[in-house]
């Protein structure tokens, strides 16, 4: 009963509507419209009149949005945070010059009044955080690309050589052509030898090589021995050491004849002049050596002081080699070039570029017509000395070429490389004849038998030297005994002795018994 009353009296509690602090126009309009709907035209006329008179102002629902403005401010703050965070992640060079260059590239002042390097760096960072770190990188890459394309444009170019070079070339042509003739004649004569005798000779050679044994071992210096070379008469052996000393040893008794003092750093090579000990005077230039500081020195057999210095190299000179005539000296440099020096004129007649990395070794053709160079770019090049052209390009090694040697037959060339292989190239057909998987470390030296080229000697950093038969390339003998890397090998011109020198500061002579 009670509830009845209450039900009728009080209207059901309206759900509490949201508190609304905005304008009341919306509600007002609603109210007005509802009024207009309910009481058809009673009040609306008055209201209309009021509106027309301008007494009642109803806007069209424009509101001032405070929320948005607040969120805008928040957005800004957040963006600033984001920017700072990004700036933190950008790495900016600590080099002030680079920072300045970066600022300039971005079109900013490179320095402001009273600004230190640290501030400048921060400024660059803040700029980069706005424009993005790619901006700087992109411009730099463009530059690089432009430079590279410019480089690629110029591939081959020619200089005009000196008159002395022309003379030398003519001389070389005159010198080499008869020698080539003679060599070929000898080869033809050799061909007439019957098969049987040839095989017998070969078998004998193989037998003797199989019996190679360590004949003598000598401590050469207190630093590693990098190079060894026999004189033409096979009576002397020159060794070069990292201590800067070169030594001459009598062969085969291994007595020290003389110590050549002159270099201050690692000596790369010391080489006898082809006629040394045969037709050359003792006081004449008999030896040439080179060192890692770029010094090249010439020696005679009388004093322990150098006769002459060849200056002109600024970088390491790894090898020197004499032209068979004894008139020219070839040097290889790590400045990507090799040079030819004329001893008669006493000047550099050729500065030959062409390798893309340092040139390590050079060897002259027995005729004196060609020179082969091998470099750290893993390619070998054979140059015609009479024309200056690169006539053969030896491509095949995977790593640096450390050694090259022409066979006395004139058309075989052996290269030893850092990829543990030795390749034999056929110059007549310009191709790789055979790849000898020779050693288990890089090959530091290759030599053909100087008399007939019937065997090949390789020395490597796996502490061994190996003897290979020349046609066939079968291993004949492994010369093991060194405790360190074998750094140089040589075969005496009479073909009896083999010398190896090693990182273990010794050199050894090997003899067939």
């Amino acid at each position, binding site marked *: 009963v009670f509830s009845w009353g209450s039900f009728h009296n009080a209207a059901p509690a309206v759900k509490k509507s949201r508190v609304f602090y905005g304008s009341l126009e919306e509600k007002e309009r609603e109210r007005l419209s509802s009024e207009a709907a309910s009481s058809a035209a009673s009040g609306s006329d008055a209201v209309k009149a009021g509106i027309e008179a301008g007494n009642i102002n109803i806007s069209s629902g424009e509101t001032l949005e405070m929320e948005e403005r607040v969120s805008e401010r928040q957005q800004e703050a957040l963006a600033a945070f984001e920017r700072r965070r990004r700036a933190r992640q950008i790495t900016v060079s600590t080099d002030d010059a680079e920072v300045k260059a970066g600022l300039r590239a971005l079109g900013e002042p490179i320095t402001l009044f009273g600004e230190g390097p640290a501030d400048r760096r921060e400024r660059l960072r803040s700029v980069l955080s706005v424009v993005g770190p790619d901006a700087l990188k992109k411009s730099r890459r463009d530059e690089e690309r432009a430079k590279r394309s410019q480089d690629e444009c110029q591939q081959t170019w020619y200089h005009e050589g000196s008159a002395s070079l022309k003379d030398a070339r003519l001389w070389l042509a005159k010198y080499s052509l008869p020698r080539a003739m003679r060599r070929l004649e000898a080869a033809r004569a050799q*061909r007439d030898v019957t098969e049987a005798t040839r095989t017998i000779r070969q078998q004998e050679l193989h037998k003797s090589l199989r019996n190679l044994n360590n004949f003598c071992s000598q401590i050469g210096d207190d630093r590693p021995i990098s190079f060894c070379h026999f004189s033409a008469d096979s009576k002397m052996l020159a060794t070069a050491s990292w201590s800067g000393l070169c030594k001459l040893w009598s062969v085969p008794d291994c007595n020290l004849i003389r110590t050549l003092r002159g270099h201050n750093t690692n000596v790369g090579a010391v080489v006898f002049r082809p006629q040394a000990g045969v037709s050359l005077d003792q006081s004449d230039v008999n030896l040439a050596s080179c060192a890692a500081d770029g010094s090249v020195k010439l020696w005679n057999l009388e004093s322990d002081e150098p006769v002459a210095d060849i200056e002109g190299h600024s970088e390491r000179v790894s090898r020197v080699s004499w032209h068979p005539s004894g008139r020219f000296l070839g040097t290889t440099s790590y400045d990507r070039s090799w040079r030819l020096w004329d001893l008669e004129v006493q000047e550099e007649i050729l500065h030959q570029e062409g390798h893309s990395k340092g040139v390590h070794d050079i060897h002259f053709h027995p005729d004196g017509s060609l020179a082969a160079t091998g470099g750290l770019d893993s390619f070998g090049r054979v140059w015609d000395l009479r024309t200056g052209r690169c006539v053969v390009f030896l491509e095949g090694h995977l790593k640096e070429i450390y050694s090259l040697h022409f066979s006395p037959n004139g058309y075989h060339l052996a290269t030893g490389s850092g990829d543990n292989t030795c390749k034999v190239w056929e110059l007549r057909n310009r191709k790789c004849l055979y790849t000898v998987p020779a050693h288990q470390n890089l090959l530091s030296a290759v030599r053909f038998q100087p008399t007939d080229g019937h065997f090949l000697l390789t020395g490597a950093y796996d502490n061994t030297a190996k003897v290979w038969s020349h046609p066939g390339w079968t291993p004949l003998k492994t010369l093991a005994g060194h405790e360190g890397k074998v750094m140089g090998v040589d075969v005496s011109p009479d073909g009896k002795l083999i010398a190896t020198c090693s990182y273990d500061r010794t050199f050894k002579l090997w003899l067939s018994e």
Partner: protein
Amino acid sequence: MSLPKREMEELRPWVERTVKKVLGFSEPTVVTAALHCVGKGLDKRKTIDQLRPFLDDSAGGFVERLFEALEESRSARGNKGGGEKHRKRDLKDVFGDEAETGAKREAPEPGDGTVAKRKRVPRFEEVEEPEVIPGPPSESPGMLTKMQIKQMMEAATKQIEERKKQLMSRLLGTPAAAASFMNDAIEKARKAAELQARIQSQLAMKPGILGALGNTGPHNLVALANLHAMGIAPPKVEAKEVNKPTPLILDDKGRTVDASGKEVELTHRMPTLKANIRAVKREQFRQQLKEKPGEDLESTSYFDQRVFITPAQRPRRAFKFHDQGRFEKIAQRIRTKAQLERLQCEIAQAAKKTGIQASTKLALIAPKKEIGEGEVPHIEWWDSFILNLSTLYSLLININSSLFDTDKPVTLGVYLTKKEQKKLRRQTRREGQKEVQEKVRLGLMPPPEPKVRISNLMRVLGTEAVQDPTKVEAHVRAQMAKRQKAHEEANAARKLTAEQRKEKKVKKLKEDLINGVHVSVYRIRNLQNPAKKFKVEANANQLYLTGTVVLHRDVNLVVVEGGPKSQKKFKKLMLHRIKWEEHNSKRDDPDGDDDTKRNNKCWLIWEGTTKERSFGEMKFKQCPTENMAREHFKKHGTEHYWDLALSKSVLDGCTDD
């Protein structure tokens, strides 16, 4: 069926005239209304209703007329459209380029397989073979000659002129403009139909290539049908009439006879056993199959020739034999061409490498011919060049060989020491922390909940903890659990998925082989034991090494290629982990030589780098003879491995003796 605007515009003058005729004066409102009705696609009754306010009683008549005109114009237009298309194509077929007449004439005729075949592009483009390419337009018997076509065209135009005249006289009653309009359309349609029909009949008469097509019937029934619709007689040239049923004539005895009174044998259908009926049906069906399929399809008048339907059964193809030696000739030509190209390419390459830019110059000094092993040339090629040359160079050549990729500077990545790493981490974390604090201070972020543990609960939530310890403890524990969970989730998110982990492992094993492939060669005295074979193979595969195993008596050679790390692992396996010598196993086969088994050994013959992999997936090969083994290696360009291993084994044998 509302009309497009253009058509409405075309109709407008005619309607105007009609209105003028009916009302006696022109009235634009009526015209517009009428057109509006037509445009809306109203039917007659509705149109009358619509126009009644304007025209009153005469509305009915007017609408009648209007609709008639509409109908006529529509049909005319339909014809015009379709006919025009037809005509164009046919005219082109007939008049097409003189050179192409032969080929083009055949093109639109479907059904003949040879046409499609002939159109196929010749396979060897560079080789001109008259057999392959469709020949010049010869006057083949199946084709229409130029003269014939010309005659036909002339006859057709003449006929058209006549027809036109007739039509003009017949259509004098209708308004002149409409008549001319109609005329035009009719003329076009007619022309097309006529031409088609003519060509048809001509082709039918020629028994050659299109003999089969002759009775395919309604080539352009569409056009004919259009003509019928317009009430114009089809052209004189007769297309094949559809067969009418022959009249049934019975004689006094009830037999079927033909017009001349002869008895006609009707097919009797004897009701027999179901099986027999089926047999007969099957037979018929088979016969139908044997006959050309789809023939009945073509006999329907609704068959559109232009639509290509692939027959259900592929027509049997005849053999096409080529002349003997034709492809040999082509191949020879291609070969010589390729050879020439290769030669040029080689010369260019060599020129690039040696730095002599003009390849002609290089060719000058290049060796003229291959010199055999034993021969001694008269003069070396490099010397012969000098002899020929009168002047010597005094030039220095610089060759920039930086185009080779090997001389890129080697750069290491940035590596940090432990200390530096820690410092970096500390700094970044501090920065991050500061940022969060800043954000909280600026009110951009709600402040983090106080971190409560059981140990600091009393300090953090002092009064509450006193009031309701159980609740507070629960709260704290929940928070702790939440923290733990978040931590673990973060860890899990960082973790690599099983797949990624696998990929990472594989990536580590598959090494970068751009700078050369590491190769090692092992020699084993005896590799007959399957367990050891398996170990070798499985390990090689797992380390992603490729290579080969050659089984020969005393020289079992294992060559593996891959990255340096895998090589190191494999080396350890071969030289240390596998115990090669087997002492006295129980299952000793009686014929196996015990010596090699007991003194079994593995040597590392060679290790080094090569440019590329020479072998594929690890494979075993049994080689009974030395030659076979060498051949196997030679096939992969690595015979020196075999030579070395063999000579080593020979040397070892010598030293043993």
